[in-house]
């Protein structure tokens, strides 16, 4: 996104908004990860304790989810930059 047309008061406001959004996004991503990994890995409710197999699955799932999101983020940033066209002189 290009904010170069914004004056300094507007840029300061946008910076605050973006920072707040980043925090909210991070929290949402975190909850989403927990929900997804729980749903994929926990299917046995004969005990309330996490079995070592379930725990391993959750850890791998979390690792993979983070790497997945990171890779999507990289591709997303590249494609987003492309779609914005060449930089202004």
């Amino acid at each position, binding site marked *: *996104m290009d*904010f170069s*047309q*914004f*004056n300094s*008061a*507007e840029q300061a*406001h*946008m910076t605050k*908004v*973006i920072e707040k*959004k980043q925090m909210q*996004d991070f929290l*949402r*991503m975190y909850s*989403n990860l927990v929900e*997804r*990994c729980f749903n*994929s*890995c926990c299917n046995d409710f004969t005990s309330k304790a996490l079995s070592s197999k379930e725990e*391993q*699955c959750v*850890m*791998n*799932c*979390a*690792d*993979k*989810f983070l*790497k*997945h*999101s990171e*890779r*999507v*983020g990289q*591709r*997303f940033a590249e*494609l*987003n930059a492309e*779609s914005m066209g060449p930089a202004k002189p």
Partner: protein
Amino acid sequence: MSFLRGGSTPGGGVNHERMEMAINEIEMITDVFNRIVGSCHSKCISTRYAEGDLNKGESVCIDRCVAKFFEVNKKVGEKMQNAGANASPATGASSFSL
């Protein structure tokens, strides 16, 4: 998503309409990103979770999946611009009488 962008209004103070448009655009980009993360996870990641690294197949799948989602987003965006946002389907719920 350029159809969201309004014209630039030069001036000193904070232009609230322009701010709101920029915020709308940020929210839209974030929303699209989160949907891509979800869709491409479902399409590309095996739920066996035997290891924590992305394997070669998953990595390649993610790259193509993100690119394809962008293409779909672009095609649909072009279609919507041609059709005009007039026939907004959201009007049903928005029929509030003042």
